[in-house]
């Protein structure tokens, strides 16, 4: 076997996809050819380094709770199917189809809520690290520039006039920023003495404003914003955050339509 033939087979040899006979031919050649051995070692090293880089990358790693959340989300559908597996009659089959459809709708709604919750967490992180601590890894950019580079809804947010709630909303700053892999249009404002954020991003909007979580020191509300989803994040109780969300929802949706 010539070096040229062996090197053409190098990748298949390294991935153990050659026929046994061909494999033996390659091995016999490598035993006597230092140049081809070096070439094979270099290719093997690139593959191993790439695998390691992917495995070690923090940027590519899932959240610690992701796998357990997934298991919790999947378990009801799996368990329901197991129960249906013992029914034998025609009616049972029909019922199982109906339950399967309902289970599918349940899983879809659950997935939708989980996506919203995940986006809400990112919005909260953006509020804390951008509006409160000015501590983002990537510099924010002007909404106009974000609009040119990434399209809607950023440019429109540059001209959105904050409405009045039960107290004035005082604009502090507005820009586009990135947190945990998601880009937001971000308007920072003051309401009732507290710093608050209106964050708009791509995602499935809820049907109406609602509190997503009020477990931490403040609360997060999600609200529909045309084709986008918006979040209000503030160190305020859920009642006041909900008032903000209700005051902003319609003007924002109209502005982004």
């Amino acid at each position, binding site marked *: 076997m010539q070096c040229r033939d062996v090197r053409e087979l190098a990748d298949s040899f390294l991935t153990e996809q050659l026929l046994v006979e061909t494999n033996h031919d390659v091995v016999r050649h490598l035993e006597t050819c230092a140049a081809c051995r070096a070439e094979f070692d270099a290719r093997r090293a690139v593959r191993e380094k790439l695998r390691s880089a992917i495995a070690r990358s923090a940027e590519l790693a899932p*959240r610690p709770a992701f796998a357990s959340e997934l298991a919790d989300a999947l378990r009801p559908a799996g368990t329901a199917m197991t129960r249906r597996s013992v029914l034998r009659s025609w009616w049972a089959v029909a019922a199982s189809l109906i339950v399967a459809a309902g289970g599918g709708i349940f899983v879809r709604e659950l997935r939708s809520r989980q996506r919203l919750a995940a986006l809400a967490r990112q919005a909260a992180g953006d509020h804390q690290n951008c509006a409160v601590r000015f501590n983002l890894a990537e510099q924010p950019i002007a909404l106009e520039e974000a609009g040119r580079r990434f399209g809607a809804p950023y440019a429109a947010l540059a001209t959105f006039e904050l409405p009045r709630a039960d107290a004035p909303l005082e604009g502090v700053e507005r820009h586009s920023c990135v947190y945990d892999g998601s880009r937001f249009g971000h308007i920072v404002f003051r309401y009732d003495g507290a710093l608050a954020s209106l964050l708009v991003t791509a995602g499935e909007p809820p049907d109406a404003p609602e509190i997503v979580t009020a477990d931490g020191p403040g609360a997060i509300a999600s609200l529909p914003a045309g084709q986008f989803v918006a979040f209000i994040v503030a160190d305020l109780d859920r009642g006041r955050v909900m008032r903000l969300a209700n005051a902003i929802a319609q003007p924002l949706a109209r502005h982004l339509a």
Partner: protein
Amino acid sequence: MHADTDSPGRWEAFQAEAMPHVDRLFRHAMWLERNRTEAEDLVQETLVQALQSFHRFAPGTNCRAWLLSILHHVRSGRLRKQGRVTVDSAIEERLANTVVFVPPVPDRLTDEDMLAALARLPERQQQVILLSDVEEMTYKEVAVALGVPIGTVMSRLHRGRELLRTELARVGVRPQAIGRESGVP
């Protein structure tokens, strides 16, 4: 499609067989999507479909390859709905005619060097390299995952690996300011 009525431990079997691959699935999805929320959503939908199809999975075969196939089919379906299917056959044609000499790869390469070099490849070459070299799938498994002939997989791999080594060879030559673009939409 009905659930396997002879397998009361279906969820337990799925949990034991498929769920240990969540980390690898997410890393693969995150590389493709470059957006954490989209990657989580892609992995979740993949596992929903996998659970529904679990009666078709043959125990003892490569579960991760099976899951990655589902992931790529789910993603392809989404891209088609969004009108985002790209045709880069012209790029592949240029690659076939231009990559001749493969320079030596520097000894010292950081993880960032490796990932940045991979990110500079056309997406189709990235996909086959990820599935073959990182996920260690066979040519046939990669072909099934991507819905292309085995010959296409081998051709893309050959070009992709040459391009990757070309990109890596540049690391030792030009300034270290090279990094991945933050192409977050």
